[in-house]
C-alpha cells in the first residue's frame, strides 16, 4: 500500500505532464494553421481575449476569488498603450510595457483594498472599483470619452519588427499569447500555485501553517492584473483603438462567461471559452441585443447544469487534467 501510494502521485504527475505537453503542441499547431482557415484579425482578437480569460481564471480557478471588474485592467492597459503609441510615439513593446505597468499598479491598489474581503464581498468590491475606473475613463481627457483613442499606429517593435505587416503582427500576437499562457501555467504549477490552492481549500489551515495568505492572494491578484493588462495592451495594437467598451462592465461579465463556459480551474478552458464567446459576438452580431440574452442563458445553463465547463467535463470524462 505504501509503495503504491508513493508511486501513484508521481505517475499521474508524469501523465499530466505528458498530456499537458501534447495539448500545448496541439494548440501551437492550431494557432499556426488557423489564419489559413479563418480571418486572422478574428483569431488575434480571440487570442487577446483568451489571455484575458486565463488571467481571470488564475483568480477564480486557483484562488477562488471572483473578480467581477476585470475589465478595468484590460481597459486601462489598452488606453495607456494606445496613448503611449499614438501621442508619445513609443515603439510597440515599450507601449505594451507601460500599459502593463499601469495595470499592475491599479491591481496593487485595488487588490490591497479588496483582498481583505472574501467571497461575494470581494466580488462586489471589484464591481465597484471597475465602475469607478470606468467613470474616470469617461471624464479623463486623454481617453477622449465616447470617441476613444482611434488610429493607434502599430509601429516597429524594438525598432525593426514591422507590426503593420499583418503576418508579422499575427506572429507577434501569438508569441505574446503563448508567453502569457505559459506564465499562468508556470505560476499555477509552482510552489506559489500550490499555496494558492491550499488557501482556496482551507484558508485558516494555511494561516496556521505559517503562510501569510493575504500576501499570496494579493500577489495572485497583481499577477492576474499584469496578464490582463498584457492582453489589453496587445488588443489595443491589434484593433488599433482603445475605447470605453474595454473598461465597461459588460466586458467584465464576458470574461466570466468565457471562463465559466470553458471550465474554471483548467488551463485550456478559458482559451476555448474565449474562442466560443468571441465567435458568438462575431457571428451573431446582426442579432443585436439578442447576443446579451443568449449570453445570459448560457450563464444560467452553465451555473445550473454545467459547472465544470467544456474542458472540465472532457477532462473528467478522460480522467486527465488539462
Amino acid at each position: 500500500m505504501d509503495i503504491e501510494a508513493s508511486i501513484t502521485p508521481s505517475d499521474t504527475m508524469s501523465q499530466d505532464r505528458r498530456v499537458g505537453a501534447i495539448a500545448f503542441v496541439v494548440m501551437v499547431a492550431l494557432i499556426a494553421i488557423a489564419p489559413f482557415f479563418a480571418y486572422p484579425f478574428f483569431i488575434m482578437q480571440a487570442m487577446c481575449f483568451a489571455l484575458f480569460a486565463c488571467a481571470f481564471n488564475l483568480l477564480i480557478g486557483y484562488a477562488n476569488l471572483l473578480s467581477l471588474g476585470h475589465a478595468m485592467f484590460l481597459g486601462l492597459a489598452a488606453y495607456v498603450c494606445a496613448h503611449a503609441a499614438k501621442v508619445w510615439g513609443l515603439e510597440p513593446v515599450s507601449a505594451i510595457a507601460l500599459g502593463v505597468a499601469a495595470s499592475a499598479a491599479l491591481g496593487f491598489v485595488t487588490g490591497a483594498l479588496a483582498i481583505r474581503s472574501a467571497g461575494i464581498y470581494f466580488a462586489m468590491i471589484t464591481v465597484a472599483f471597475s465602475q469607478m475606473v470606468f467613470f474616470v475613463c469617461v471624464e479623463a481627457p486623454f481617453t477622449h470619452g465616447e470617441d476613444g483613442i482611434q488610429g493607434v499606429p502599430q509601429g516597429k517593435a524594438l525598432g525593426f519588427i514591422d507590426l503593420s505587416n499583418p503576418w508579422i503582427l499575427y506572429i507577434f500576437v501569438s508569441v505574446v499569447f503563448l508567453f502569457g499562457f505559459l506564465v499562468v501555467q508556470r505560476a499555477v504549477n509552482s510552489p506559489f500555485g500550490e499555496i494558492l490552492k491550499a488557501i482556496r481549500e482551507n484558508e485558516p489551515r494555511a494561516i496556521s501553517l505559517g503562510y501569510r495568505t493575504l500576501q499570496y492572494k494579493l500577489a495572485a491578484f497583481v499577477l492576474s492584473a499584469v496578464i490582463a493588462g498584457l492582453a489589453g495592451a496587445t488588443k489595443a495594437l491589434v484593433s488599433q483603438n482603445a475605447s470605453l467598451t474595454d473598461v465597461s462592465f459588460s466586458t467584465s461579465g464576458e470574461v466570466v462567461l468565457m471562463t465559466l463556459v470553458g471550465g474554471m480551474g483548467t488551463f485550456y478552458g478559458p482559451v476555448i471559452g474565449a474562442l466560443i464567446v468571441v465567435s458568438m459576438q462575431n457571428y451573431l452580431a446582426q442579432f443585436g441585443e439578442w447576443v446579451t440574452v443568449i449570453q445570459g442563458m448560457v450563464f444560467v445553463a452553465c451555473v445550473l447544469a454545467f459547472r465544470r465547463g467544456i474542458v472540465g467535463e472532457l477532462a473528467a470524462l478522460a480522467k486527465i487534467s488539462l
Partner: protein
Amino acid sequence: MNLFGHTITMPELFGQLLIGLINGSFYALLSLGLAVIFGMLDIVNFAHGAFYMMGAFAAYFLLQYTGLNYWWALILSPLIIGAVGAIVERLFLKRLAGFDPLYGLLLTFGLALIIQGLFQNYFGASGMPYAIPKQLTGAYNLGFMFLPVYRGWVILASAAVCFATWLIIERTKLGAYLRAATENPTMVRAFGINVPRMVTLTYGFGVALAAFAGVLAAPITQVRPGMGADIIAVVFAVVVIGGMGSILGSILTGFVLGVVEGLTKVFYPEASNTVVFVIMAIVLLIRPTGLFGRAA
C-alpha cells in the same frame, strides 16, 4: 458662497441636496432589499437592478394597457415583480443550495443579462416618460427653496417603507422567525416552520422592494431598460460601505451617500460619479467589514 472658483447659490445647493436625498431613497430601498435577501439566502442578488427596472416597466404597462394609475402601480407592481422573484427563486436559486454562494451571484448575473437584453430588444435604449400623478404635481414654497411635491413624496414613501421593513424584521414574531432561520435553518425547521417557503417569500419581498423603488423612480428618471444596470454598481458600493450585517445600517448608508453624492455635484461636479467609490475605498481601508457590519 465661493468654492473651487465657482459661486454656489443657495437654491443650487438645496436643489442638489434634494436630488441627493431622492437618489439616496433609491439606494436605501435597493440596498435594503439586497441585505434582506443576503441575510436569508446568503447570495448577492445581481438581478436586483433588473428587477428595479422591471418595477418601473410594470408601472408603465399597467398605465398603458389596463389604465391603472400610479397608485395602483405602487401596490401591484411590487406584488407582480415580487411574484416573478419568488418563481425565479423556486425555479433556479433553490437548486444552488449547498453550493458556493458565488454560483448564486453568477446565476443572478446571467438572469440580469437575459432580462435586460429582452427589454432592450423590445424598447431600445431610449426612455419612456411616465407622468407624475396629478395629486402630486406642483411645488411647496419652503421659503428658501421650492420643493416639488412629487420629490417630497418619494423621500417620505421610501423612508416609510424602509422603516416598516426594519420594524417587521426586528420587532415582529415573523421577523424573529426570519432572523432565527438565518442563524440556524435546520433548528427552525425542527420547530415546524416551513423554512423553504420563508426563503422564497423573503426573496420575493426583497425583489418587491426593488420594484417599489422602480415605480417611485418612473416619473423622475423615465422608464429605460438600462436604468437598473446604471444604479447597481453604486448600490453594491453602498452595501460594502454599510456592511451587510445590519438592516438599519443599509438604510442609513443609502440616504447618507445619496446626500454626499448630491453635495459633491455642487462643490466638485467632476467627482460626483466616483465619490461613492472613493468613500468605499476609504471605508475598506479603515473598516474592511463596513461601517455597520459584523466581522465575517
